[in-house]
């Protein structure tokens, strides 16, 4: 088949079951799905549409002749008759190669998303801290992540949708130019970035990731504060040891609250005792504990979403 310069060969998404081989001239491929990607050139000898031929996949690219171009078209009848002249196992090899390529594509997509998450969190955190705002324009986020890590807009949107499903943020606004990505808590995005960064650079779990017992104690602390409308003083919330023990008995599923249970939270600076704390002394030797209430809420939220992160991303 011959095409003049500027003539379209096929459109992205077209139903297809043929392979194109460029015999002479040049085809240019573009994609609306990935608009940021550079145009692809296909010169003589290039083949396009292996998956259309083997698995009737729709066209992945819009192809246009850049100059006078001749292409050879291979259809599924030609494939079938060629395979009939070869042993049966040959078809299995082709199927295997196609399946292997599909797996490699999926792995690459997953890897790209996982790789892009820190960049998104870094840019988002920095914007929140630099401006003091609780949102970032979506267009600005797209632009900055593209500059930092070459992550295309559709991948950024995919990540944002995953984080939205975890309740961390919300994309608001109707038109693309007006869209803003708004966070539920100002600290959770920086906290998540810091936790991932710590794990990657130190090859160990971040201190922000709490044990089940630590989470249960802090959840009990928050529950008492909320149910009793405990007033905050400079963001600090104070709970008596008696209140903590009584509530723990009810809500901590049989776990007894002791100095040893509380000690890791004191070591991490999350709970502060009213007097000097001795792990060997009875818990009652401390009359009350106080803590940065917002920080505890953010940490509990981080610990809720962290185990779900990988599953939600890919």
């Amino acid at each position: 088949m011959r095409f003049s310069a500027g003539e379209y060969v096929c459109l992205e998404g077209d139903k297809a079951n043929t392979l194109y081989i460029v015999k002479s001239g040049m085809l240019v491929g573009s994609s609306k799905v990935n608009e940021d990607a550079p145009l692809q050139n296909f010169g003589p000898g290039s083949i396009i549409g292996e998956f259309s031929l083997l698995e009737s996949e729709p066209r992945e690219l819009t192809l246009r002749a850049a100059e006078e171009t001749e292409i050879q078209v291979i259809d599924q009848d030609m494939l079938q008759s060629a395979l009939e002249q070869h042993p049966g196992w040959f078809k299995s090899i082709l199927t295997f190669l196609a399946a292997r390529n599909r797996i490699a594509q999926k792995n690459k997509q997953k890897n790209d998303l996982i790789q892009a998450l820190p960049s998104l969190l870094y840019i988002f955190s920095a914007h929140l801290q630099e401006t003091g705002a609780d949102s970032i324009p979506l267009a600005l986020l797209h632009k900055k992540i593209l500059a930092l890590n070459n992550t295309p807009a559709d991948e950024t949107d995919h990540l944002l949708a995953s984080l939205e499903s975890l309740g961390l943020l919300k994309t608001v606004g109707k038109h693309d130019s007006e869209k803003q990505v708004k966070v539920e808590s100002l600290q959770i995005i920086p906290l998540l970035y810091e936790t991932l960064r710590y794990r990657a650079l130190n090859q160990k779990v971040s201190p922000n990731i709490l044990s089940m017992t630590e989470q249960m104690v802090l959840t009990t602390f928050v529950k008492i504060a909320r149910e009793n409308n405990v007033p905050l003083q400079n963001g600090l919330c104070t709970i008596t040891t008696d209140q903590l023990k009584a509530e723990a008995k009810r809500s901590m599923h049989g776990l007894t609250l002791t100095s040893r249970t509380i000690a890791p939270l004191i070591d991490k600076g999350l709970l502060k005792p009213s007097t000097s704390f001795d792990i060997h002394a009875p818990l009652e030797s401390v009359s009350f504990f106080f803590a940065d209430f917002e920080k505890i809420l953010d940490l509990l939220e981080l610990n809720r979403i962290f185990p779900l992160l990988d599953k939600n991303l890919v």
Partner: protein
Amino acid sequence: MITGDSRKKVIPPTRSHVKAGFVVYSPDSGKRNIIILDEGELAAIDRSNGLKSTVFKMHPGDLIGVAALLEHEAFRYPIEATSDSTITVVTEECMESELKTLPLWMLAVIKSLSSKTRKLKEALHKTRCENTLKSLAEFCSHLEAKKDYAIKDLAREFQWMTKIPKPTIQEEFKALARRKFLILDNNGEETSVRIANPLLLQIFVDYLNATEKGGNWEPFSLDLNQKRLLVKLSAVDQSQEMDAPAWIAFFTAQGLKLDVAGWIRVQQFGWFKPSGDNAFAPNTDKIKYYLAALRYETNIRGVL
């Protein structure tokens, strides 16, 4: 279609019957064969932790070794027959002779699938960044000004985020330092990085974005009159609010040329922001941005 007539030269695959427990493939053998299971059952076995465990089972019609044979990517597990089985072994010579009889387009499809898979696998370990200097500038533009950071910590964090190789990161730090966007200080033990002005790094990223797209970058495309307007605007009271005709009259009274077309252009630059009742106030951030871009033009263009 070129098919050739070389069927006589084809080396046939070997078919054999094996007993349960027979090792049909061992990674140590160095052989690159495709094994097709015709009857029975085979299993890939892992003995790496001292215990024998089954990685996966193969059923009639399944095959292994394609990647080993076509892409020199050895299969890592031994394959054993778990019951009496019949297998077909396609050796390297057999495959080669078979490939020679293929139509050229089918050979091209095989090569293309193989090569695309290999590239996808290689890409897993490579950076996606095409402009590593721009990437580092974007990263550094969010650091605090005039604070010392250990370069090795920044480089590790940046590498984790982008997968850019360490030597490239070091080179790009030097490139930014040459443009005076950051200061590298070596106290003998370790090198620290200090950002002079994060705004300049943001401006630099915007400039690189514009040049990559091949267009003119607005701050460097201002004519002399527009530059004079900008300088004048930077000196007026930033809380001043006036409507468009009043601003035009204001600049005209100052001896600067500004007609309606010029006003629209200035609006496009973002030098004014609406402040209600058709009034406009100077947009301080944009004015600072343009002034900084003009002042540090040589640093941004890299023609120091």
